Every structure is written in C-alpha cells, then in structure tokens.
C-alpha cells in the first residue's frame, strides 16, 4: 500500500492575533488532517477561543495565514463549517424547530419539505424531540447545548468548531454528546473542541493540542501534558 499523506484540512501559518497590547495568539503554526477529533486544551488566556474564532472567520488575524479546505478566505468555504460556542447562538423566544428552520434557510436549504426532513434528522441525532414547541429559552442547559450543536450540524459541515460545548452540562448529557461527536468524526467530519474538561474526551479524541500563552506547546495522543519547552517556563 502506498502511503500518501492526505492534504491537511486546515493549515495555520504563524498566526498572530493582538487585541491592543495583549497578544492572544503569538505565532501559531500547525497542520490538521481531516476526519479527526482534536481537543484544544490549555489554561484561561492561552488563546484557545481566539484560535477557534479565527478559524471560524469571526476574527481577522493581525498577521499570518489560515487556509481551510484550500481556501484563504473563510467566506469561500463557510458553507462547510459549523460553529458552536458557549452562548447558545439561538433565539430564546422560538422553539428548536423554528430556530433551525431559520438557520437552515441561511445555509441555503431552501425547499420546504427538504428543510423539514433535514431538521428533524438533525434534532433526532442530538437526542432531542423535534416536536417540542417550548421556546429554547425554557430548555435546560444540557438541552440548549444539544440544540446549539444541532444548529451547527445543519449544513452537514466538513469542519466542526466547538467552543466549550460541555460547560454547565451534566455528566450524562456530556458523555452522550461526546459519543455523538465521535460518531460524526467517524463519518469523516473534522472536529475541533476547545474545552476545560479534557477527561471527557479521553478515548474519543484523536489528538490533544496543548496551548499556552498563545502558542501550541505540544500535541499528544493522550492526556499527559507535554514537557514545557526550555525557556517558555516561568
């Protein structure tokens, strides 16, 4: 069998992001291959969320390049990206179905019957009831996170970017979500998860990406933190 390395799905080259005097990302360089689940770990202020938001096109880098699915501009491939953050990114006053109907239209899933099919499938896949008419604002945190994940999955993305999807979610729902995400990864989607709860992903994640002070300090296949590199310590 001939080993051909698949083209990386995301390439980040010397990415720098500064907010005034504070440098959130101080030169991140990495390649990420497709079909894997990456857990991005690190302390507060390490730059994890900034990195994710830059990948999602919500932040412009101060310098450096990001190439996603071969495109330099996020807008060219936004159709293939799903994003989820700690706030729910949903309208509290509408039900789950109504929220997803709206976002489906934004992604161009236009025809009415196809829309309904896709939405029902996605809501079921995250373990929620599509016929729930209660507005999202009345959901429990776990339900809201799952509905938010459903929204991110609507457009059947090739890349899924999740920022703290498990925070404030009970253990049972969280492990359920991890199983779900592993299944999505198995179908070929590349998943990036920023989290403080690394233990949840032990076993599911293909790689752990450790960040510190705006740089990637190591990439491991298990939960042992990499040795600090030389002068970076203290």
């Amino acid at each position: 069998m001939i080993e051909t390395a698949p083209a990386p799905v995301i390439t980040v080259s010397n990415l720098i992001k500064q907010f005034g005097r504070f440098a959130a990302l101080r030169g991140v360089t990495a390649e990420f291959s497709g079909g894997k689940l990456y857990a991005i770990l690190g302390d507060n202020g390490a730059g994890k969320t900034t990195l994710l938001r830059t990948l999602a096109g919500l932040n412009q880098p101060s310098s450096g390049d990001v190439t996603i699915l071969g495109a330099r501009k996020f807008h060219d491939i936004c159709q293939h990206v799903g994003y989820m953050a700690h706030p729910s990114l949903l309208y509290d006053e509408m039900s789950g179905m109504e929220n997803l109907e709206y976002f489906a239209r934004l992604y161009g899933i236009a025809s009415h019957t196809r829309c309904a099919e896709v939405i029902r499938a996605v809501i079921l896949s995250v373990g929620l009831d599509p016929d729930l008419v209660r507005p999202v604002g009345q959901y429990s945190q776990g339900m809201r996170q799952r509905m938010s994940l459903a929204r991110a999955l609507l457009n059947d993305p090739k890349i899924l970017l999740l920022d703290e999807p498990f925070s404030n979610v009970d253990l049972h729902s969280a492990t359920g979500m991890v199983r779900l995400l592993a299944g999505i990864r198995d179908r070929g989607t590349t998943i990036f998860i920023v989290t403080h709860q690394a233990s949840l992903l032990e076993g599911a994640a293909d790689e752990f990406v450790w960040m510190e002070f705006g740089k990637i300090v190591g990439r491991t296949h298990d939960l042992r933190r990499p040795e600090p590199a030389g002068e970076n310590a203290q």
Partner: protein
Amino acid sequence: MKRAFPILGILTALLLSYALYQGLVVAPTEKTMGDVQRIFYYHVPSAWTAFILFFINFGASVVYLIKRNPAADIVALVCAEVGVVFCTVVLITGPIWARPVWGIWWTWDMRLTSTLVLWLIYVSYLFLRRFSSGGQTPTLAAALAVLGALCVPFVYFSIWFFRTQHPQPVMGGGGSIDPRMLHALLINWLAFSCFAYLVCWSRYRLEKLQRDVDEAHAMESLLDPQRSVR
C-alpha cells in the same frame, strides 16, 4: 522634516501677526457695524479652515476604508479634532458678533447654522472614537466620517431653502466687498491654514508616537507573554 517644523512655526507666527495687523488696523472700518465687524476676519476664515479639515477627514477615511492604512486613520482623527476646534471658534465668534449688532445671541444664519450641524456631526465622530474599543475604532469611525461628509451637502441645501422661506439676519458677506477687506480676509485665512497645519502636524506626531509606544508594548507581549497580562 524635523527642522522644517520650527521654521514653519516662525513663519506662521509672523503670518498670524501680519494678519492680525491687517484685520484690526489696516482694513477699513465697516460703515454700519463699526469695529465689531472685524470679528468677520476670524469668523469666516475659521469656518473655511474647518470645512477644509473636514474634507481632508473625509478623504483620509475613504483611503482608510480602501487600504486600511494606519496613517490615514491618524490623519482622519487629527483633522476631525482640529476641525472641531475651528468650528467652536466660529460658534463662539458668531454670537459675539451678533449680540452688539442685532441684539440677539444667535441667528439661524446659513453659515452659523451649518457650522453648528457640522460641529455636532464631528463631535459625535469624536465620541464614537472614544467609546468604541480598540480594534474596531478606525473602521467604525471611517464609516461614520463618510456618512457625515455625505450629509454636508444636505445640510447646506436644507438650511439654504429654510432660510429663503424664513429669512434671518445675515452675518457678513452680502454684496460686494472692499478689496482691502478681501485682502485682510484672505491673509487671515492663509494664516489660519498655516496654523491649522502646524497644529495638525504636532497632533499627528503625538498620536503616531502614542501608537508606536502601544505597538512596542504589543511587540513585547508578543515575545514575552507573561509580561503582557494586566
């Protein structure tokens, strides 16, 4: 570059003194209003200078929106600040003039009214610059500057028509003007323009310096993160 500044400073000082002499001594006394009318030589050139500065602000903002050039952003900021100062001069000299001549503190005369609106627009611009957070400020301010500049013709037309329907006392400039008065007016304008240029230049240097310091700090935090977090 650095040597030019004091030279220009001295030239401007000389020009301003000459203009003062022209305005207060050489120009003939106006028939109806008397010596109070001499405020005209401050009122009108200030308005013209402010207008030019706002026009430069518009140009710099457009350049910024197209090229994201930081220097353009500084020019826009500087011109807005100095322009607002000159506008304030117009708005203060106006009532000072109006009171002894017409007995009222304010008239909805074209120049005064449009200057007031311009002042409001550019003060709101300065507020936006102050209240928005770092990264967005240049972009948002540039967008506002474009809208503000586009508003100017509407300001003039609407006030012009309003005045033709509701006539008000006109402050200076109606009819033919004595050539010595015109001379004094133009000299004052030249002097004010030079002065404005000097102030803008200083302010530009100050702002550039401030930004260079910020950038040095940012560079420091880029290289050594533990020093940056405050």
